[in-house]
C-alpha cells in the first residue's frame, strides 16, 4: 500500500512537473480516521498530498468529466474545441478503470486527455464494519498486505479479508483494463472466487415475491432522498436528472414511498450494463442503504443474458446500445396453444 502511494505521488509529481498533465486526480486524507477525500493535485508539490490506503472508497473518475471540462475555454456555439487541451492524470483500480472505459465510450472523457495509471487492488475496507468491531474511538490506522492495525480501538487489528467492502469482496476484475491504461503499477490483487460474485443478489432472489417486496420496501423506506448516491456515481452525468425533471414529472419530490422506490429503480436501471460495482453509492449513502443490490442484480442479468460486463471489454458496444438476434426472451408471453400440452 505504501509503495503504491509512493509510486502515485512520484508519478503524479513527474507528470505535473513536466507539464504533461495539468492536474492529477487522487485522494487525500479525510478529516476523520479511515476516511479519504477526492483530491486534485495541480503541482508537483501538491502531489505530495496524495495518499493511497484501504479507505479510498469514493470513485475518483466521478470528478473526471467536470475537471476535464473545466479546462475547456469558453466558446460560442458551433466553435470547435482546441486540439491541445490540457491533460489530466488519474490513478485507477479495476472497477474505476472500467468506469473510465464507459466514460470514454460515452464521450464524457477523452482518451487523448487522460493519463491513466492502473493500480493493483487488494480491496477497500468497510469503515462501518470496522467501527462496529473497534468502536468509535480509533484515532489512527496502519496497514500491511494482510492486516489493518488500529490505535485507540477496542480491537488492535483485523484481517483485511474480514472487513472488505461487499463490492470488493465480490469483485472478480480487480485488474485495471490494460487496453486503456497509459501505465500500470504491478502488484498483488484481490482474488475472489467468481462463483460467489452474485451471492448477495441470489440471496434476495431466493425469496418469494412478498419477501422481496418486504426487503425492498423496508430497505428503501429509510431513504431521505438526499441524492448522495447519485452524486457519488461516476455514471450520473445527465445535465438534468430525471428526478429533477418537471415536464414530465417522473417522480414526486416528497418522501412518498412510491416515488422513492421509482427513483431507486430508475437510478439503478440507468446504470444497467454500465455499473462497475465500485460501491461509491453505498459508500456515500448516509443511511447505509444497500443500494448496490439493485445495480448488482442488473449486472448479473447483463452477464447472464447478454454476456457483457461493464467496461471489461472497453471497445465493445454497451449492452443497451446493441442487440443480438438470439437474445433470450423467456419473459415473452406466448399464446396458449404454442406452449405445449401441459400449460
Amino acid at each position: 500500500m505504501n509503495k503504491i502511494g509512493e509510486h502515485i505521488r512520484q508519478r503524479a509529481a513527474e507528470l505535473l512537473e513536466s507539464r504533461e498533465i495539468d492536474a492529477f486526480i487522487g485522494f487525500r486524507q479525510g478529516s476523520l480516521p479511515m476516511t479519504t477525500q477526492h483530491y486534485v493535485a495541480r503541482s508537483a508539490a501538491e502531489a505530495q498530498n496524495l495518499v493511497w490506503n484501504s479507505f479510498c472508497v469514493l470513485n475518483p473518475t466521478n470528478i473526471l468529466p467536470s475537471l476535464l471540462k473545466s479546462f475547456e475555454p469558453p466558446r460560442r456555439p458551433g466553435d470547435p474545441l482546441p486540439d491541445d487541451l490540457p491533460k489530466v492524470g488519474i490513478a485507477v483500480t479495476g472497477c474505476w478503470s472500467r468506469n473510465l472505459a464507459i466514460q470514454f465510450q460515452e464521450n464524457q472523457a477523452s482518451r487523448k486527455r487522460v493519463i491513466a495509471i492502473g493500480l493493483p487492488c487488494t480491496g477497500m475496507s468497510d469503515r462501518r464494519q470496522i467501527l462496529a468491531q473497534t468502536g468509535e474511538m480509533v484515532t489512527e490506522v496502519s496497514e500491511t498486505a494482510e492486516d489493518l492495525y488500529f490505535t485507540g480501538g477496542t480491537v488492535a487489528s483485523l484481517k483485511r479479508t474480514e472487513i472488505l467492502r461487499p463490492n470488493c469482496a465480490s469483485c472478480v476484475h480487480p485488474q485495471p483494463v490494460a487496453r486503456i491504461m497509459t501505465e500500470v503499477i504491478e502488484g498483488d490483487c484481490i482474488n475472489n472466487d467468481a462463483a460467489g460474485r452474485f451471492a448477495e443478489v441470489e440471496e434476495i432472489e431466493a425469496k418469494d415475491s412478498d419477501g422481496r417486496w418486504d426487503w425492498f420496501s423496508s430497505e428503501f423506506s429509510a431513504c431521505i432522498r438526499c441524492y448522495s448516491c447519485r452524486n457519488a456515481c461516476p455514471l450520473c452525468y445527465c445535465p438534468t436528472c430525471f428526478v429533477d425533471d418537471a415536464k414530465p414529472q417522473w417522480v414526486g419530490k416528497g418522501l412518498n414511498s412510491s416515488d422513492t422506490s421509482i427513483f431507486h429503480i430508475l437510478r439503478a436501471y440507468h446504470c444497467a450494463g454500465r455499473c462497475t460495482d465500485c460501491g461509491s453509492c453505498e459508500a456515500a449513502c448516509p443511511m447505509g442503504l444497500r443500494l448496490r443490490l439493485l445495480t448488482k442484480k442488473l449486472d448479473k442479468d447483463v452477464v447472464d443474458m447478454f454476456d457483457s460486463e461493464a467496461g471489461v471489454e472497453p471497445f465493445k458496444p454497451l449492452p443497451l446500445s446493441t442487440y443480438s438476434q438470439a437474445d433470450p426472451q423467456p419473459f415473452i408471453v406466448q399464446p396458449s396453444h404454442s406452449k405445449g400440452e401441459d400449460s
Partner: protein
Amino acid sequence: MKGSVLIIGGSIAGVQAALDLADSGFYVHLVEMTSGIGGAMSQLDKTFPTNDCSACILSPKLVECGRHLNINLLTLSELEEINGEPGNFKVKVRQHPRYVDPTKCISCGECAAKCPKKVDDLFNLDMNKRKAIYLKYPQTVPLKYAIDPQHCIWLNKPGKCGACAKVCPADAINFDDTESIHELEVGAVLMSPGFRPYNPEKLDFTGYGRLKNVVTSMEFERLLSPSGPCTGHMERPSDGKEPTRVAWLQCVGSRDENRSCNSYCSSVCCMYAIKQAVIAKEHAASDLAASIYYMDMRTHGKGFEAYFERAKDQGVQFRRSRVHSITPLAEDNLQVQYADEEGTLQRDEVDLVVLSVGMEMTTKSQELAHLLDVELNENNFIKTDPFNPVATSRPGIFVCGAVSEPKDIPQSVVEASAAALEIEKMLSDSRWQETQEAQFPAERNVFAEAPKIGVFVCSCGINIAGVVDVKDVTEYSAQLPDVVFSQNNLFSCSQDTIDQMAKTIQEQGLNRVVVASCTPRTHESLFQETLRDAGLNKYLFEMANIRDQDSWVHQNDPEAATLKAKDLVRMAVARVRGANALPYNQVAVTKAALVIGGGMAGMTSALALANQGFPVTLVEKADKLGGNANRLFHTWQGIEVRQQLEKTISKVFYHDNIELKLGTTVEKATGSVGKFTTTLSDGAKLEHGTTLMAVGGKPLIPTGDHQYLYGSNKQVKTLLEVDEMLLTDINMGSIKQAVFIHCVGSRIPEQPYCSRVCCTHAIEQAVHLKKLNPEMDIFMLYRDIRTYGQREAVYKEARSLGILFIRYDLDNLPQVNEEDGQLQVLVQDHVLLRQVKFNPDLLVLATAVVAHPETKDLAKVYKCPINQEGFLLEAHMKLRPVDFATDGVYLAGLCHYPKPLEESIAQAQAAASRASLILARDMVPAESITAEVDPRKCVGCGMCTKLCPYNATTLDLDTMVASVETSLCKGCGACVAGCRSDAIILKNIANEHLMAAVDAALMEM
C-alpha cells in the same frame, strides 16, 4: 405521349411498380382479377430468410397503394383489348360487378355472418369455407366485401335469400350491379400477374388429392398462418391432429420433364421448404421431426446458405434422396420410401407430407400474353432479354415478377422497380402530366389557443352502437375537460358526415379533434384529410378505436364495452390535448445523382437516370469502364457479353448528362437525402440528391485447402481466366479433358455463402468448350448444382452433350496433384462410391465472388451497413432490396451479393427507379413525427446514434450535443427510449403525451 400506365396484376411486384410509378409522376391504373390485391405473398405465413411475417410487411404497402391519389385500383377486372403504340396505347378493361358498393361498405362483416351460402375459400386453397359474400382476406385492399356471383343465392334465384342486403347497416349491397368497361389511354403496360403453384393432382405417386395428409406447400403456408384455416395451430387435414413428423418433398412440378413437363427449377422451393420446416418446428408444442427430401439444395440467395446451415443446427433433417411414392399407414399416417445415397431403401413414417410445388404460368396469363401479343419462351413464361430483363418482345409492354421466370419476392420487387424505371424512361416527357395533387386551404395557427376539442363518436351502423352505448359515450365526452363539442354519427366515414365534420371544425373553432370509431390503420388518413380541409393541421387529431378493439371484441358485455369506450375517448382526449401542429416536412432536392462504380450495374443506373434528364456523375476507381463484365464471355443464354458491354460503355461515354470520372474514388461525404456533398479523390466536391452504390465484387483468389494448385500449375485456371482466353480467341479446342471444380471458396466455413453465379457460369462455359470440341471430355465436380430458374436448361444441355457431373462434399474434397507436369484429379463418384481418376489438361476452378474490401470504407462514408461477408446490406431483404435504411442511398450489383449480369442490370434499373422517386421532385416529403433533441438536456453520450437504424441522429463531439436530421428520421422513437437524460422527444408522442394517456386511462371516473 401519355403520362399514365396500366399495370395488370396486383401481385407484390405489381403493387411495388404501381407505387414507384405513382410516386415518381405517373398515373397508374392497377388492374386486379380478384377482389383484392396482394397476390401470392398475402397467402404466405412467414418469408425467408428473415422469417418476417408476410402480412406485417406487405400490409403497409397495400394500404399505401389503396389510398394513393394517383393509383386507380380496378379490382375484379381484366384486360379486354389493346390498341395503339408505345406511348399511346388505348386499352379496354372489363370490370366485373362486385355487388357491394365499395364507397358504402364498412367491412363490418355482418353480411358474411348472415349469408347462408358456404363456399370453398380459395384464399385458403379450399381448406375451409367462406361465404358467398366475402372478404378476400382480412388485410386485403380494398378492404371491401364482394359477392361471388357463382354461389350467391339471390343472384342465381332473384327474390330468394337477400340476407346480406337485409343486415347491411350501410346499405351497400347492390344486386343490380353490372359490369363496366373502362376505356383508358396509357403510355405503357406492365404485366405483373404472378404465378400459380403447380397442382400435383396428376402425380398419382404422391397420393395428393387422395391422401388427405399430403398437402402442397402453399396449403401448408395457410396451415401455418395465424389467419389460415386452423388459425395457425398447425393441424393436419385428416383429423386435426398436430403433426409431429413432417416430410417435405422437393421438386414437385419442377425440374421434371416427365410428369409435370416443367423442366425449369422454380428457384424458391428449397428455401421455402427450409423456412416451413423451421417455422413448423417453432410452432410445434413438442419436438417436431422435419425432413426435407431433395436432389440439389438450392440456397443461392443472400443469407440463404446461412439459413440452411442454421436449419441443420436446429435439427431439420436434409435427406439427399427423392421419394418415389407416398403410401398410407394406420391412423392416417404416411410412409415415404426412398433410396439413400448408398442405394439402400429406407422408409420413414410421418404424419404429414408437404409437396414443395413449383411455380407455373397461369392459363389466364398465357391468354393475357396472347392478347398483348408478347412472346412466350419455351417454358411458357414471358420472354425477356438478359440485357433488359423487364422488357417483353413488344415495345411499350413490360413485365415483372414470377410471370417471366420463377423467382423470389426480392427479385420480383427488384424487377418491379426496374420495370417502373423503364417506363419512367420511356414516358419521362409526360411526367406529372396526369397526376393529381391534393389541395388544402391554408392552416390556422392554433399555437396560442387554449385547447378546444371536438369529439365525434361513430355508431358504425350497429357495429359499435349495437354493443356500446354511443349516446352515453357522446354525452360523457362532452364533459371531459377542454371538450367543447361532441356528436354521435351513424357513419363517421360517410362522405356527408366527413363534409359536415369539416364544417363543424370551422364553425365551432375546434383546434383538436378526436374521432371514436374504427382503427386508425385504415381511417386515420381519411379523417386527417378532413382536418386539413377544415384548415387544421392534421396532427391535431387522435382516434379512439372503439370498434375493432372494443365493440367487436366484447360483444357480450355491452356495459364493460361502454365503460372501455369512455376510457378510450378520455385517453384520446388527453393525448390530443397536448398535440402540436407539426410541419409537413419536405426536403429540397438537388437534381443530380452520384453513381459509384462503372461496371454494368453502375453504367445501367447512370444511363437510366441520365436518359430521364438527370445529371449524373459516374465515378469509377479503375481507368476504364465495364468492371467484371470486361472479363465475361457469355451470358448463361449463350449471348456474347462484349458487344453489349461496348454498346453500353459508348452510350455512357457520349451521354450529355453523364460526367465520367475514371480513376477516381469517393473520399468523404456529408448531407443526406436531397442534398449530399461528396468529395472525390480528385478534390472535386459534388452536390447531389441521391447516391447509388454499384461498386461490384471480385473473384476470390483460391488459397489453402481450396487452392488446387492454382498459381503453381498453368493448367489450373479460374472461370474468368478461361472466359478471357475465349475472348482473346486462344485455341481451346485442342483440350482433351477438362475438369471443373465448383464451390471453390464458396459454402465453406471461412466463406459460408453461395456465390450464386458459379454453377451456371461454369456449366455454360463447359457447354461452350464441349461445342468447340465435341471430343473433349468434361467433368464437373460439384456440391449442389444451383442452376436456378430457367438456368436449369443449361445444366440439361451440358448433360445432353455428355458432360458428366460428379458430386463431392466438404469431407471429401477432390484431390489435385501434379505428376511430371501432368495434372491428376481424384474424386469419389457419388453414385458408385468409387474413386475416379482424371488427367485433365485443363482444370477450371469456379471461384467465389467476394466483396471488395473497400466497400466497407465506402459504406462508412454514407453510413450504410455491410453484412459479415462484406456485402452492402439493404434496408429490407424482402421488400426493399435496393434501398438502404438511410434515405436517398441505393445499391445494385455485386456489392449487394453475387449475381448474374441480368440480375445486376435489373437491380441497377431498380436502384435508378428508386433514385428517380427523389430526383423527379423538387421537394420530397419527409416524416413529420420526428425526434428532436433538447440540447440543454443532452449530455452527448452518443447512445441515440447507436440506436438509430436510419443514421438520423448524430453527435457533435465539439458541442457534445446530439441532433436529429429530420429528413432521415422515421419517428420510431428508439432513441427516445434509450436516452437516459430524456433529452430526445418524439413529437406528439413524447413521454408527456403517453403519460397523459396513461393517467387518463387510470383516472377514476
